[in-house]
Structures are given as C-alpha cells and as structure tokens.
C-alpha cells in the first residue's frame, strides 16, 4: 500500500477542508490564527483514498463505511444527528425515513447514506 499513511506519503498533496496544504498546519499557523478548527477535519477526498486502501486490503464493508463518511464530511452536524435519531428504534415512521433518505440524496448528494436509510426502512 504505497500511499499509506497519507500523512507521510501524500503530505504535500493532502488538503484541509478549507484548501490549506496539510504540511502547512504548524503550531505557529495555529497561534497566528491561520489554522482553525475546521482545518483539522478530514476531507471527502482523503476518505475516498482511505476507502480505496481498505478495499484493496480486502475490507469492502469498511470501504463502504468510509465512502458513506466521505458523503457526510460536508453534511452539517445537526442534520447528521437528525438522521441518526430517525434511524433509532421506534422514533419515526417509514415515510419519514424515506423523506430523510430523499433529503440525503437530493440536498447533500449522499446516495450511499440514502441507500442505508432506505434499507433500514425496509424498502
């Protein structure tokens, strides 16, 4: 797995969600206010690379999880908690779950997560 760990092998190419270079995250940059909390998050691109690494290592389910994570990387926390809450037992109707799935797909371009929610609804 030649590109793993990405933090070593692709340090020059990795970007933070705000587009900052990975290797420019330094303590001085944090202290001067150049790096914020939002820079210390994973990007959809890095998650897709990790998914590929997991798939090549023979772990398709983990790869699938990382691809769903790539979809969620840009979804706001509040909506993530809404989806989670809807999936818990006895919280909502099948119709409401299908609505949540539709919203994941149309509004957040998250078809894999939408498929998981539809599957949970029994469809």
């Amino acid at each position, binding site marked *: 797995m030649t590109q793993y760990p990405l*933090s070593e092998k692709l340090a020059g190419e*990795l970007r933070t969600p705000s587009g900052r270079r990975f290797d420019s995250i330094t*303590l001085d940059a944090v202290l001067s206010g150049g790096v914020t*909390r939002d820079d*210390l998050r994973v990007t959809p691109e*890095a998650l897709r690379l*990790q998914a590929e690494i997991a798939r090549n290592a023979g772990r398709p389910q*983990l790869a699938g999880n990382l691809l*769903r994570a790539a979809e969620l990387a840009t979804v706001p926390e509040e909506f993530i908690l809404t*989806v989670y809450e809807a999936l818990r037992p006895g919280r909502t109707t099948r119709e409401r779950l299908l609505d949540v799935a539709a919203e994941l797909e149309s509004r957040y371009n998250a078809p894999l997560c939408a498929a998981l929610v539809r599957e949970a609804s029994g469809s």
Partner: protein
Amino acid sequence: MEPSKRFDTRAARPIQRDSFIEEWPETGLRIFPGPADPRPSITIRGGRVVELDGKSEAEFDMLDRFIALRAIDPGVAEEAMSLAPLTLARMLVDINVPRPEIIRLFRGLTPARIVEIVALLNTVEMMMALQKMHARRTPYNQAHVTNRKENPALLAADAAEAVERGFAELETTVGVARYAPFNAMAILIGSQTGRGSALTQCAVEEALSLKLALAGLTTYAETLSVYGTEQAFRDGDDTPWSKSFLAAAYASRGIKVRFTSGTGSEALMGHSEGKSMLYLEARCLMAIRGGGSQGVQNGSISCIALPESLPDGVRGVLAENLIASLLDLELASGNDAMASHSEIRKSAKLMLQFLPGTDFIFSGYSSMPREDNLFGGGNFDTLDIDDYNVLQRDMRVDGGVRPVAREQVMAVRRRAAEAVQAVFRHLGFPEIGDAEVDAAVAALSSADMPQRDVVADLAAAERFLSSGGNSIDIIRALAATGYREIAEKILEVQKLRVSGDFLQTSAVVLPGAQVVSAINDPNDYAGPGTGYRLDGERWREICAIPQAPDPRTIGAGGGAASPILTPLLEAAVSSDAADLVIAVGPAFGAALQSTILGLGHREVLDALLSGIEAEGLRPRIVKIRASSDCGQIGYSGAQLSGSGISIGLQSKGTTVITRRGLPPLNNLELFPQAPNLTLDSYRAIGRNAARYAKSEPVLPVPTQIDNMARLRYIVPTTILHLKETAEVVPSGKPLEMQVVK
C-alpha cells in the same frame, strides 16, 4: 459435620467469593451450544442471501436481514459453506494456510457455521489461531483513566503516566455527564505530555460523545454497543442501521470508531431466545463487520463475570475474541471489568489473550487503583503494573507496556498536572491550586485529592463546550503558558484527522505521530520465524525492569575495604587436642566481607571465637584456597585440626561442623540456609563445635525452616558464590590467618 481446619481455611480464600452456577440453557446461560441455536445453512439466489441458518428471507429478523445484506459475501458463501467444519477448523491452526486465505473463506460463512468451527478447537488451538489471525502484527494496549472526584489534575497526571508506560489508547468516562468536556480535556493534555502520542476517548452518551469528538477533545469512540437478538438491540435503543450510520458519522470527522459487544449481554437483558452466548456473539460480530466498523472490543467486557460463572466460560470468551479476528476486525480483547476475586484465576484468564497477542490486550487496563475506576473496571490496575512488566519479561511476550523509572514517571505526572493547571487558569476555569497539583502528582487515588467546587466546574465545562470551545483553544492556551511541546504534540495528532489514516483497521498513533495499522503492519504470522517477534530495542526495554540490578554490583563494596585477615604461614596439621580449626572460604574477609544477611565477617568470626573459647578450646583460623565448596572447606579444615573438629565457613555465611574421618559431604551439623543465621547462631555453632571436640553430648543448634528463603536468596547466593569461586587458587595451600586488629 466432621470438623476440618483445611476446609475452613479454604472457605476464606478469594475464589469462594466468585459466583458459579450450573448451566440453564433455555435462558441463554450456556456458552455453547444453545437449545435454540440454528443449524448452519445458506442459500444464494441471484447473488443474494435468501436463506440463512435455517430461516428463509421472509422469516428474517432485523439482525438476519442486516447480516444477509451486508455481512456475508455471496461470492464465496457457497464455496466456504461446502467445506467441512473440521477442515476449516484445522486450517485455523495450520501454519501452511495463510491468514488472508482464512479471511477470504470466513467472508462467506454464516454465524451458526462460524461458531460450529470455532467450537471444534480446544483452548490452546484457539490461542494458536488467534496468534495467526489478529489483524495488526504488533500488540498494543488501552488504558482506563478516571477518578471518583473527576479531578482534572489527577486525570492529567494519570494519563501522562499511562502513555509513558506505553499505552496507545486512553479511555476516560464520567460520574456526572456534564464533567465530560473537562475529563476529555485533562486526558488529552496528559496523553501528549512527555513521550506523547496516544488516541483518547470519553465514553458518554452518543450525541455528547460525537460533540466532544467534533470539538477535537477526543480522537476515537468505542461506545457503539451491539447485541445478538433483536429485542436486546432495541432495548439498547439502536438498530444495526443506526449504528452503521453513526460509524460513518464519526469517520466523516476523522474519528476512529470501535464497536462493543460480548457474550452474556443478551442473557443479562433477558432476551437470549434460548440461544447460546457464543452464537449470539457471532451474530453481533457479523453485524459489526456488516456495519463497516474497523473493529470491536469484545471478550464479554462488562458482563465477564456471567460467562465466568459457567462451565467453559473462559474458553468461550477466547472463542469470541477469535471470531472477531476471523472476521478481520480490530480486536480489543476485554480483560477490563472485574472478572474474579482470585489473583490466580484472573492471571490465568489473561494468558489466553496475552500469549497469542491481540490488537489491544486490554480494553482498559486501569491506570489508577481500581476504586477510582468508573467503568467497573480495574481487573488489573496500576498496583499490578510491575507484575505485568515481569510477565512480559518472563515469557518474552509483548503485552504493550514498558517498564519505566520512577523519576521519569514523576516528571511527566508533574508536567501534566501543571499544564492542566495553566490551561484552567488561562481559560478562566475554576482554579487548580498548587497544593492540588502536588497532591495529584503524589496521589495513590482520588482519596488523596481535595474536594473541588463541583458546581463551578460543571458550569465552566458546559460553558466551554456550548460556546464552541475546542482543541485549538487548548493548544493556544498551552503555547501561551509555557507548554509549547504539549501543544505541538496535540496538534500533531489532531492533524492526522485530516488524513484519515487512523480510520484503517487496528490503527494506533505512536510517538512522533506515527500511524501503525493493519495496513502498514499486517499480521503475517505463518509459523516459527514469522509474525511478531519480540527482539531488538523493544526486548531490551522489556528486560530492563527497574528492580533488576546489574548482578556484578551485588555484594560489591566488600572488595574495596582492606582485608580483615592477614596470612601468617602455611597451615600445618596440629597435634594439640584443644586445637579447633575455623576454615574459611577463599574470598572470606577479603573480596567479600559480609554474609548474605549482611553480617560482617569480623562479627561472625568474633561470635564463633567466643563460642569456642567459652568451652576452653583454642580456635585457629585457616583460609582454604583450593575450593569454594562448603563441604570441602570444612573437610580440609578437619584434616588440619588437632581436635579433628572443624567449622567450615563460606563467605556468604553457609556453615558446617565436621570431624576428621567423615567424607566431604557428610558432617556433624550443616547450616545450609545462611539467611537464617544470626550472630547468636554463630556463637552456638562455635560452642557446639567445641563440645564435639571434647566428646560431650551435644544438642544440635536449632535452625529455622523457611520455604521462602531459597526464593528470596537464590540470586544473591549464586552471585556471592560466583565471587567466592573466582578467588579459588586450585593449587593454593591452606593458610593460617590472623585477625587484623
């Protein structure tokens, strides 16, 4: 009842406080098999699992459906299910069948078939299989860091010590949920003090746990519990789909996730459906793989005392560990919750994970005394850590812990406690006083800590989190208050979240922010000479326990002092009937100058001389140079003695009284346990020797019998004897000696 002091004494032993019951299979109180366990079967149609372990698609419950859809690879199911269980069982222990081939086949097996296969192995075979199957080659360890008072300085000091001792993951939790931001912060700071680099988590309710992770106060989570029946799952307020979604949610923020399962939980919740503990755990593990988790902590975890109450329970827990590894999941293998009152039983059980190695031997080694463990854990705690270090060294096994010197531990404890104090002050949280820091550094437990203002702490903790406080604030506070090196290390680990590297199976972050996982450190065990071998720097580290000195330094110091005896002339045979020889070893009073108990050679001689002289005999000191053996020394002395009696005395203090005419290994009295000899004993030995010379009736000197003496003294005995033997001059004649005044 016939009285018996032995039965009465055994009744008070710790093992009697453990609970044991007979099996009750219909309620799930059986390891394997259960009366309602299904027979293994599978039907694949059109690339779909349409029948699973005797149930058609229409009869599937929630877990069956999830497993059929997500956990079984229809592409290998028919091949794998057509192999005889015994064939597969033998592959697990066959070094010629590589791990990847087993992983491939197990992708196609049903839960019922997996338990059927694993149940064919005995305990040692399971350990062999686990050695081959655990995902990451190098074993590591997770620690619990909590305390009853939720004191931040103590949490930080304990976290720093845990990382210094080699723990790669730290888990805290709360007594009061609102303390979570402070507890997470304290172990975050502690974890990156000193050696640094560990992932940290705070076990709380899911939504709060996610919030802490989003704020960068934690870097992993493992509270995602899974159960083996639908009803138990629902009682846990989740479904396999909600858990899967949560796993993706954590990963989407670069946070590592490990699920939790374990035998016994379904029976405990009253929802076993008459199925065996092991079959239900196999279902859990399939659901965990299907949900896309990289790993699991299992091994019964908090239910451990329940399987351990049953026959086959400890083997059953090993079996569930093995199944997790067969499903290619990261395995944190339990050993956390209190499992027994008996130290023998706890240690024996530990060996099943410790010897084969797992990804994390413990799901939580208590880094503080167990009374401070808020997980109900502490099966092994900080007071056992020296024992644990010795076990690694005894068996040449890497248990993920390193021996460290006291000064090193105390330095990081202080640095961490002071860093938390500085951050609290800088961010305007309730004061941590200097005395509180001192108490945290020196504490045994939170009983040694002052009471904090809980109301003020909780208000500040809530304010911090709700106002968007996060790890950047902590990094800045540390840098501003003189803790730049801790700030750097926290940032290095946070930075790794951008790459997602520690989302891969079995990832740990080592010093230098180095990520090691099953991707770049895959278990390649294939028999002797392969897989993880404890060698090189790591082995030297494990060997160097602080309590093992350089043997060359034992008994040293005597050599530097000037000899207490000087030679007069070559010793001759005496014809004086009152002559009694004290024959000493070649190092006596010179290279060595005290006995094993630390009695000075001069004092020992004085005691012998006074005992002899009190009986009116004339003692003569002779140094035997040709032998260091006690029997030979005494024998040689007897050949020179006018009375025919001699006392043989080795430098370490071992003494014999013998008489000319007896062979070297026979004697009148022998005192082989030098550690039990006092100056009074030596005086009595001198007196008895003199009475033998006068042919008076003699009551032998009473000696203590101490079974532990050999255990305690065999090492110094050996070393002192080696030093005496080094002074032997094979051709050297006995010399008559005089005590230097």
